[in-house]
């Protein structure tokens, strides 16, 4: 039997949607038993949402005041302790998981499989390297604990369970480290769909030329029920918030529809959208590399095309 422990990232109320994708990944391992671990100051509601994910056999909770804000330094020693008796320890490839899991791996003296995208066996996995320009198959040595972050764009979310999994309080002796203190978090919270899980994403590049101009993309996105993304150039120039960056070093997303306006299509950007079902590109330059990956391409000026699309969407086809 393969016993898989997944750290259940959450926002204090619910588990992150990425966790249902990690569960699908874990279920792809033969003969798997899946446990979710919730670290929280008050885990009850989060644990209930974790227990409702189909394919979860058990939820364990670790309660500590230090977990009111999730910090890798506080969670890592406790997760490493919980990992005894498990063959695999997984976390999502979110900034939370990327921060935490290598710290856990080192405490366990294990290597880590980053951005696990496909399971071939309990010890053999595929992962992208070189900004997804190559895929490597890696094999971990027999008997070694497998620590991994799961590339969430590669897996469908597990459904909702009819019979919730049992929830147990875990006892751990490792104390959270106190050399790291949470100060604050600021997010441009909006009512728009979350970029990482949205079915549709409208995205803009350097061509938008100002933060005000980005407003036309927000308008279109609101009409379509889409999230808004951006290229690095647009974020660096201050036209869009940093958490909107899509790409190798931003968010890797897999929406049904990705609309790229005034984005050239640098490899680092394309890495982030390779798993999108349909890519639409609008660019002035017919030679722009984005057209090589676009399912639907239009050579044109975005400042004309965007308002036109918006207008046409109002008219039934």
């Amino acid at each position, binding site marked *: 039997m393969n016993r898989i422990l997944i750290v259940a990232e959450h926002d204090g109320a619910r588990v992150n949607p990425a966790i249902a994708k990690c569960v699908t990944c874990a279920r792809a391992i033969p003969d798997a038993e899946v446990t979710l671990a919730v670290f929280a100051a008050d885990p009850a509601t989060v644990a209930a949402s974790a227990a409702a994910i189909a394919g979860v056999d058990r939820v364990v909770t670790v309660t500590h005041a230090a977990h009111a804000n999730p910090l890798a330094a506080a969670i890592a020693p406790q997760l490493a302790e919980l990992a005894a008796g498990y063959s695999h320890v997984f976390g999502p490839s979110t900034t939370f998981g990327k921060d935490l899991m*290598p*710290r856990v791996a080192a405490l366990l*003296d294990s290597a880590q499989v*980053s951005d696990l995208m496909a399971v071939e066996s309990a010890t053999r996995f595929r992962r992208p390297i070189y900004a997804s320009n190559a895929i490597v*198959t890696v*094999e*971990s040595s027999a008997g070694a604990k497998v620590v991994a972050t799961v590339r969430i764009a590669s897996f469908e979310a597990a459904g909702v369970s009819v019979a919730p999994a049992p929830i147990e309080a875990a006892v751990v002796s490792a104390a959270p480290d106190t050399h790291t203190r949470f*100060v604050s*978090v600021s997010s441009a919270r909006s009512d728009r769909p979350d970029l*990482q899980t949205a079915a549709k994403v409208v995205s803009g590049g350097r061509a938008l030329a100002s933060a005000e101009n980005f407003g036309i993309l927000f308008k279109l996105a609101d009409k379509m029920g889409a999230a808004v993304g951006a290229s690095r150039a647009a974020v660096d120039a201050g036209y869009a918030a940093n958490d909107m960056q899509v790409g190798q070093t931003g968010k890797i997303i897999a929406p049904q529809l990705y609309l790229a306006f005034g984005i050239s299509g640098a490899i680092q950007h394309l890495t982030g959208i390779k798993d999108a079902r349909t890519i639409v590109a609008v660019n002035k330059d017919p030679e722009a590399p984005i057209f090589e990956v676009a399912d639907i391409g239009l050579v044109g000026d975005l400042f004309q095309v965007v308002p036109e699309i918006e207008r046409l969407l109002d008219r039934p086809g």
Partner: protein
Amino acid sequence: MKRILVPIKRVVDYNVRIRVKPDGSGVITDGVKMSINPFDEIALEEALRIKEKGLADEVLAVSIGPADCQQQLRTALAMGADRAILVQTDAVVEPLDVARMLRTICDRESIFLAILGKQAIDDDCSQTGQMLAALWGRPQATFASKVEIDGAVARVTREVDAGLETLEIDLPAVITTDLRLNEPRYVKLPDIMKAKKKPLDTVDTASLGVTPVERLKAVKFDPPPQRTKGIMVKDAQELVDALRRKGLA
């Protein structure tokens, strides 16, 4: 002596189009332009700025890899690092072993701050800084977009999925850099000449007490699946029609 450690990885330049070898044994790196990992340049720039503010005395650049890494270390010295160490090996060194070697260096050189890249753009692992912090038993502030040193504490703003998070960490500590932390300086010709005289020591992995182990064996390399060729439309009307046919609008 307040010393900052900046690990420098030699990687295929980010502009190179990567190709997988036909036999699937790796990617083609022969004759390809090599550079400092871009995130490590940002790390070095940050270390230099901290030193220039009088908050550190020395910046030590370390690279682990083949003899050719000397080129990237020379560039680091030209940018302004004071000293460099090459841990020379032709073995594949995984992040855990890189971290173990850096850990030894942190102790020997009494490092008060280690600044690493958030990820190497070849293996895209994003592991080494966090592993070093764990082995060292020290704080980590990953994906930093702002760093302020105040005595024995650093205040670091991090780029996280939700937005920006600020942490306060006790030094010594590990910081990993995100893209927007700073813009690295250009190297000037006189600095390249000066850098030739700066100390660059070469040591082997055994002297750091680590024998690199391949814990994750790379079985084969494949090119990524190609997307099928799409269609070009001539105007917004055709675009919206095409979306409607796919049920997307």
